[in-house]
């Protein structure tokens, strides 16, 4: 079996007495879309936060493309090729769509003082390439939006902001994309559109693997290859959506015991 893109073993996180993440084991294969589901407070976002270096792991290990990335700083996790979106939309509202996407493009842009202050022609070339890239990406999600690249994000409706956030995560061509409730606040129609777009992106970026946290089971059923179910920080089931949905423990976790 080929090496997995992501392998979590025993990943644990305590907050004082509270065990938010309890010895999570999870694998993501190359090109897979894995759903991470579970009731509120089950540790899904915490697993993202630990993985991306926002919180330190209390125990356990995370391996990405064969490299140990446990407790790396957030910047280093990004450099390794993991990008994410946030449950509560975190865009820079006063900045333009293009600016926001460029925040995510840090890895592929030149940040030296000399380059930025003095090599204006080279900068202009990099700028134009980056602009084309960003605009293409936005066009996949919403063509009219691609014509408004220099509008302020603060003026956009929530669904457009979520799209921009995903573009920000994708622009650096990550190997692993972590989506945290991307469809929150969207109608069914919009959600379907968004999932179509995500699948199209997955087609375009070779080898892109995705872990998606969702509450919308229709989404999970439709686009994921596998699911991992968490409850109170520990994994209680794993498998294709059908299997997992039929699992007694999972049903109890969501609906309570009869």
């Amino acid at each position, binding site marked *: 079996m080929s090496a997995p893109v992501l392998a979590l073993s025993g990943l644990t996180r305590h907050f004082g007495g509270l065990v938010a993440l309890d010895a999570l084991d999870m694998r993501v294969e190359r090109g897979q879309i894995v759903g991470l589901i579970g009731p509120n407070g089950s540790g899904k976002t915490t697993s993202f936060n630990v993985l991306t270096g926002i919180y330190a792991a209390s125990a356990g290990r995370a391996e990405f493309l064969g490299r140990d990335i446990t407790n790396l700083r957030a910047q280093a996790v990004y450099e390794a090729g993991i990008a994410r979106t946030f449950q509560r939309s975190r865009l*820079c509202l*006063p900045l333009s769509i293009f600016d926001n996407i460029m*925040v995510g493009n840090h890895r592929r842009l030149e940040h030296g003082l000399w380059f930025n202050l003095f090599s204006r022609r080279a900068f202009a070339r990099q700028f134009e390439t980056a602009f084309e890239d960003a605009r293409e990406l936005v066009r996949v999600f919403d063509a009219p939006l691609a014509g408004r690249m220099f509008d302020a994000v603060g003026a956009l409706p929530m669904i457009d902001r979520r799209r921009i956030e995903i573009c920000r995560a994708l622009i650096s061509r990550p190997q692993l994309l972590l989506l945290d409730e991307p469809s929150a606040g969207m109608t069914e129609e919009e959600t379907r559109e968004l999932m179509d777009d995500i699948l199209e992106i997955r087609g375009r970026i070779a080898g892109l693997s995705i872990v998606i946290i969702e509450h919308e089971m229709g989404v999970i059923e439709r686009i994921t290859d596998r699911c991992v179910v968490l409850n109170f920080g520990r994994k209680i089931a794993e498998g294709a959506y059908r299997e997992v949905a039929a699992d007694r423990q999972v049903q109890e976790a969501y609906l309570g015991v009869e």
Partner: protein
Amino acid sequence: MSAAPRAPLWPGIVAAALVTAFAVAFMWAENEWEVVGVLAAALVAVLVARRTGWLAPAARAFEMREPAMNRVTIVALLVFIAFFHDDHFPLLMVGTVLVYFTVCLGLTIQFGYSGVMNFAAAAFLGTGCYTAAVLSAHTSLPHLLVLAAGGAVAALVGSILILPVLRTRGHYAAVVTIAFGLLFRTFLEVNDTLGGPQGLKLPSMKLLGMTFNDNFSVAGIEFSFYMHYVLTALALAVLAFAVTRRLERSWIGVSLDAIRLDETASACFGIHIARWKIVAFTLGNFMAGAAGALYALMLGFIAPTNFTFGDSLVMVSIILLGGIGNAWGAALAAAIVVVLPEKLQLIQEYRFLLYAAMVIVVLLYRPEGLLPRPLRNYLPGWRPR
């Protein structure tokens, strides 16, 4: 490239010309009634311009045709200076405004772009001043290098404060820089090696073989000796402005803004928070120090009373009133804040109170300031295909 029409230049030129005219009239005004009259006329002109829709095209000219408008502004400034070529006081004013403007550009990088709070701007200005005083009196370092040294020493002093400044919660940086701003004057006053409360004198600045403290004449036209300093200050301000604008209109500018707006997300996208805060803080302090060195040479004499906490707050007021993050706003506000108390003597005494009250009003009702910061325009005049 694209065939889209470019924003016309002439509204900007007209605006610059009008501002220059008002500035000249303001400087010429002798008594308080004339001053108030000029101010009132300026206010009326602005309101009329806004009503009749003339303000927007001028603003667009500045945004879209920035390189050309920069040159227009420099020309306008030179024209203004020419009007007062042999008059000491207006030239001293212009020099002071340019110095304050340079310091405020540094503050813009710190406060406006990266969100690093600095309530000790006057102390960093003062550090540059005292560096220049000591170096020019005790060494024969060429004065151009003295300016650089002033900046370097200010940057170095700032690095003492850097650890608290790097903390995520802004109030650490605030309390530490407030404390530094408060202490700077006290430290100088109790310390006799730096002149104590009496201050220090400086020799004339010498550059390119010219002794700055001598009046001179060219082709029969008399020039005040302050002209040397004003032109040097202009060069320094132009340099600082260019660096500040380039910084904003680059990937570094994006990173700085991202740090200010959301540190967690920035970290998740590879931005090195500490590094950029250090760069912003240090660069801003360097600008203040270099401007300070020139200021000291221009004044010929410095004392601790020039660099109080109140003065630091006035500089913060300038960038808040002008429009936080907007370099042009800082220029306009610096001119008004520095010159007004000199022409209207009665508010000289009240200026700390007045400016603080104005900032409160602005923060409550128009937090973006006089000239709100426009969206980032990476390559002025560029249009997508």
